[in-house]
């Protein structure tokens, strides 16, 4: 009896702080409600999910997630709720919960949510859905579902440009690529990168590694670092990562290699968000994927009542992908490299250069 009482007290002591603030919040029903379900990486992966978070935060408050800096776009007056699923199994209940509570727009972050959204969106035809990096088809398997917007990016085009910059910068003639989970989407980054590098130097070698084949591959910086070290050991001096949190291990690896005469001996190229400031001096550039703009736009469409289902494709022409030159890397990239990359950018937009899309093969 005494033991039961003691156990009860321990359990109550543990859950009491959680209960204190768990009041039911009455939302303003006149506002547009937006729910976002993140990928396993979580919203502060400094990369892909972080970009989606910036987009919805901007739509909610007109600021960046720090709540102070302006995002240079007007707030749209929405109610925003977010869920970070701990495991893939909690994605569907989260999505359903938003739909069940009558949210106006439910955003799914990441390709892995497409099959789940297909099921949920069919059950709630009156609710708008948006999925990043995914496509959701109706039951016939051909036409896109009318209440789902697929936000897609031409990652291969942006990767092509950073591949050129990498090849212009490399002194060893060997580049590295570290992908997260081995999926067609990440192959698209890799293929574009390799083509861009080969356009500059046909004899360049591109080493490619993947952290894993399950979604744990996005959250394993230790392994990301080991892969990068192994590539550096084989001569790679510029490494492009597309691996979520695991990619941060590559940043540690190049920093560990250190500097010579004030310049880093090895560089890393960031992905999705601008990662130039993560390790200043070691980050050559970042291949940004403007998930934030795409998410803001789709929220705006819903607020203004002009939501359209189907594919929304963001490429170089709409600045949906690209590379970043800012105060952190201006001295690292040669003007010559920037000139060639800009030239290629125009040619890709005009169709003179065709970059292979590894997902279309």
């Amino acid at each position: 009896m005494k033991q039961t009482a003691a156990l009860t007290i321990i359990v109550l002591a543990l859950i009491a702080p959680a209960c204190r603030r768990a009041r039911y919040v009455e939302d303003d029903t006149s506002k547009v409600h937006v729910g976002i379900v993140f990928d396993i990486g979580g919203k502060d992966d400094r990369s892909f999910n972080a970009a989606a978070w910036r987009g919805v935060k901007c739509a909610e408050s007109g600021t960046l997630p720090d709540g102070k800096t302006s995002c240079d776009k007007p707030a749209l007056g929405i109610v925003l709720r977010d869920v970070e699923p701990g495991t893939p199994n909690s994605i569907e209940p989260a999505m359903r919960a938003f739909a069940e509570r009558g949210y106006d727009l439910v955003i799914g972050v990441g390709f892995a949510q497409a099959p789940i959204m297909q099921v949920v969106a069919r059950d709630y035809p009156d609710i708008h859905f948006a999925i990043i990096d995914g496509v959701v088809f109706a039951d016939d398997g051909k036409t896109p579902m009318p209440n789902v917007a697929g936000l897609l990016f031409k990652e291969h085009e942006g990767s092509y440009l950073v591949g050129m910059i990498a090849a212009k910068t490399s002194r060893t003639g060997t580049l590295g690529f570290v992908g997260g989970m081995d999926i067609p989407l990440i192959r698209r980054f890799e293929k574009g990168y390799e083509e861009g590098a080969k356009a500059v130097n046909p004899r360049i070698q591109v080493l490619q590694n993947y952290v894993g084949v399950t979604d744990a591959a996005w959250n394993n910086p230790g392994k990301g670092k080991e892969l990068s070290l192994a590539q550096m050991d084989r001569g790679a001096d510029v490494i492009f990562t597309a691996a979520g949190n695991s990619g941060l291990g590559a940043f540690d690896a190049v920093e560990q290699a250190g500097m010579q005469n004030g310049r880093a001996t090895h560089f890393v190229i960031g992905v999705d968000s601008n990662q130039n400031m993560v390790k200043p001096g070691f980050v050559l550039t970042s291949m940004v994927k403007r998930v934030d703009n795409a998410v803001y736009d789709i929220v705006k469409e819903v607020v203004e009542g002009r939501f359209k289902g189907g594919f929304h494709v963001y490429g170089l022409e709409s600045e949906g992908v690209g590379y970043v030159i800012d105060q952190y890397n201006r001295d690292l990239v040669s003007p010559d490299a920037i000139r060639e990359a800009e030239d290629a950018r125009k040619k890709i937009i005009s169709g003179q250069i065709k970059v292979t899309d590894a997902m279309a093969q």
Partner: protein
Amino acid sequence: MRSILTLSLVFSTIRLATPLVWAAIGGLYSERSGVINIALEGLMLAGAFTAAATTYYTHSPWAGLGSAMLAAAFFAFLLAIVCIRFKANEVVAGTGINILFLGLPAVLSGALFLSSGSTPQLPKDELLPEVAQLSVVSLLALLLVFVTQYVLYRTPFGLRLRSVGENPEAADAAGIRVNRLRYTGVVLSGVLAGIGGAYLSIGQSSLFTRNMTAGRGFIALAALIFGKWRPIQTMLACLLFGFADALTIQMQGVAKLPSGEDVPVQFIQMIPYVVTIVVLAGFIGHSRAPGALGVPYDKES
């Protein structure tokens, strides 16, 4: 094809085996005293998060390492109370700790860093120092194994710990305080697993990310069983797992099929698991657990 058997493979193996050795030897102290410690994964996460957060505030990796030991020891103590005092099922209680640490770092990092499960990245000079490509934690791991070997087989404490795990009734009759030794074993396992976790966040990497152990606690547990609950064998098992992992890293993109194509990544990443199965099934033979493992001790029964 360039040879993959290079010195860097050796270093890579040691780096990858380090967290496993700390956690597995931690588990050894707990399990040799008779308490199943399936919570190694969670205790490592506790250490990893605390180390990264403390180092961020104090700018000292040593403070980070110390706090990681304390934090993991605290949660190991909770586990010990639940399992020893209240005789809860040890597997269930351990799983509870693991699940707790899927969520707790996210909550705490939200309060401390406005993030949801990761800590800010630390600059390189605030990480645990390295000696000749290897972290001091790796070198200490080797020392730990031999100290453990000595303590377990050459000291009265080791003898008592083993007797409590094998036959608590006999130990009790000989005047040994069974539960006090079990508390010590479990808390020690927390301290050591915490160091293993700290190595992940402030040695190998420079930040904590959610669930960054990625199953290493369970692999450590497997190494412990595989090493028959003996320190040196356990270390060798950890090195084997580390080697298999390092091999997959070095082979990826290097190994070619006879046709000239790269060997598929999926195939290469299968290697550690195949090695585990083959070694466990083929070479190890019968692995006998401590006699009273998982059985709470009750004086009256």
